[in-house]
């Protein structure tokens, strides 16, 4: 009998060891709950205390239950969950990348989540920035995102940083988190965040997405790991940067990269799996991933090859203007190629167009009205909407001058003897007023002096003339 009891005890010890190895509390949860409900417990207090003491991960029964589907994975365990609960992640940028990243980190049970963005939610964000909703259009993105995260998981701590990332707050923000996610949409923020992470010895999970392509890399993770500046030491010049507002983006693409950013952050924190050591390239058009093994840290790097003190000083001296919301939203820098006499305001153009706006007969026939209206946007943008009678001759640096003979003919048709008709002005319009100036310069060079660019393009047209014109 005694031998059997000893055998049973041994079996219990063996089973409890298995549970502990898997990180699952061997505390008999159901029994304790029954006891709290006032029903009889088969165990006395001494036994219960002894059983309760084996749980060292600090998770509650609710935690175990809520996160059971990831805890139950042999490689993850309650220890992994506890590491998440005790860790903090800063998500900088709550757009196409930051939306899914913040949601998945929240769902996974990260202990503290920092959210940074100074923008407001716009309707054009919603196709990819899935953390926001129609109801939050016009409100700050951090508030919209924080509310969505709280609704998903009320047990985590969420810090909403309204002021956006700047050289004044970058170091302070980064220093108080374990992992940083770069979900920003502009090069100055990417370099600033990198430098702040290097100076603070904080891993940086960097994601980017545009069009049908995405990029993902983990920088500054351990002593050997290179940083963003090692990879891309030469910042791109203004005008070379592809932005979602100009180049377009299929919403799922940053969604996939943002999910992977959350995944790498979870791997860094929990130690599950192997953290990415490549620059991962996602090609959505071919449904393929390519990788490039990252180089080792570069001794001459302007960030990780510099002393933290020097780097902090450099961050403090960065140009503040590059980080304002205006700098991000303004699109390409407006050009001033033409003399003011060769430019016309949108409202002045409106006065010259046929009064029944939108009901004008056929496209490409504006010359019948005594002027020629040329829209130099790409055909797919022209298809969004165009001004009455406008003809679409998309701008191209190398080949636009080929349109000159046609425009010469339209301006001064040989068959018309009327001198008035022979000097039709040409108005050139584009989205924002840069390409239209380039096109007018070509016309001026070809001798067509009566050519004008519409200042500020269709953006100005929408603002000053027709609020119904589609914004994009």
């Amino acid at each position, binding site marked *: 009998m005694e031998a059997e009891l000893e055998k049973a005890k041994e079996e219990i010890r063996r089973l409890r060891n298995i549970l502990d190895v898997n990180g699952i509390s061997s505390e008999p949860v159901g029994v304790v709950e029954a006891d709290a409900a006032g029903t009889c417990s088969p165990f006395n207090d001494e036994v219960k205390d002894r059983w309760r003491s084996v749980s060292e991960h600090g998770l509650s029964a609710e935690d175990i239950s809520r996160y059971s589907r990831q805890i139950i994975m042999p490689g993850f365990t309650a220890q992994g969950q506890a590491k998440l609960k005790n860790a903090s992640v800063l998500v900088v940028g709550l757009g196409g990348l930051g939306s899914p990243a913040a949601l998945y980190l929240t769902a996974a049970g990260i202990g503290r989540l920092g959210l940074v963005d100074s923008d407001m939610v716009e309707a054009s964000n919603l196709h990819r920035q899935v953390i926001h909703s129609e109801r939050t259009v016009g409100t700050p993105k951090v508030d919209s995102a924080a509310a969505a995260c709280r609704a998903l998981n009320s047990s985590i701590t969420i810090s909403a940083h309204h002021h956006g990332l700047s050289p004044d707050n970058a170091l302070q923000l980064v220093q108080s988190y374990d992992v940083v996610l770069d979900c920003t949409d502009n090069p100055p923020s990417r370099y600033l965040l990198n430098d702040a992470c290097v100076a603070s010895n904080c891993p940086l999970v960097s994601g*980017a997405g545009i069009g049908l*392509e995405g990029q993902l890399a983990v920088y500054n993770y351990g002593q050997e790991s290179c940083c963003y500046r090692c990879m891309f030491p030469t910042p791109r010049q203004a005008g*070379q940067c*592809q932005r979602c507002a100009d*180049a377009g983006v299929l919403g799922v693409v940053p969604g996939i990269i943002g999910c992977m950013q959350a995944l790498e952050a979870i791997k860094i924190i929990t130690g599950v799996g192997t953290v990415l050591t490549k620059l991962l390239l996602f090609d959505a058009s071919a449904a393929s991933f390519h990788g490039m093994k990252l180089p080792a840290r570069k001794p001459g790097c302007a960030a990780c090859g510099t002393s933290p003190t020097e780097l902090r000083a450099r961050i403090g001296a960065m140009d503040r203007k590059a980080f304002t919301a205006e700098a991000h939203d303004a699109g390409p820098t407006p050009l001033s190629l033409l003399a003011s006499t060769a430019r016309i305001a949108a409202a002045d153009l409106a006065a010259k167009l046929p009064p029944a706006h939108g009901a004008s007969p056929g496209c490409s026939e504006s010359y019948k009205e005594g002027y020629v209206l040329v829209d130099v946007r790409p055909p797919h943008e022209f298809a969004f909407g165009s001004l009455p009678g406008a003809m679409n001759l998309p701008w191209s640096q190398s080949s636009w001058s080929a349109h000159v003979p046609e425009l010469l003919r339209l301006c001064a048709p040989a068959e018309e003897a009327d001198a008035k008709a022979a000097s039709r002005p040409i108005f050139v319009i584009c989205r924002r007023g840069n390409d239209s100036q380039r096109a007018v310069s070509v016309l001026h060079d070809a001798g067509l002096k009566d050519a004008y660019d519409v200042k500020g393009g269709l953006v100005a047209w929408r603002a000053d003339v027709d609020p119904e014109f589609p914004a994009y």
Partner: protein
Amino acid sequence: MKVQVMFFASAREVAGVSNVELQLDEGTDTQILLRTLVSQYPTLNEILPTIVIALNEEYLEGTSSLKDGDCVALIPPISGG
């Protein structure tokens, strides 16, 4: 020898294709290859300073000789988010 060239992001926009296979003379290195590509796609020159080159999925520092079957990738940074 045949070398495959893969274009990503703005390099893909400039080239108008995602990849090409080039027949190159023996002894051609990555620097000569890049010069050939720039002469074929002149706009590439503008973005070249920011582009990272990968040779057979490894980051390439400086110049390397090429052999038959190599794969060279032109990877500009993207910033969208």
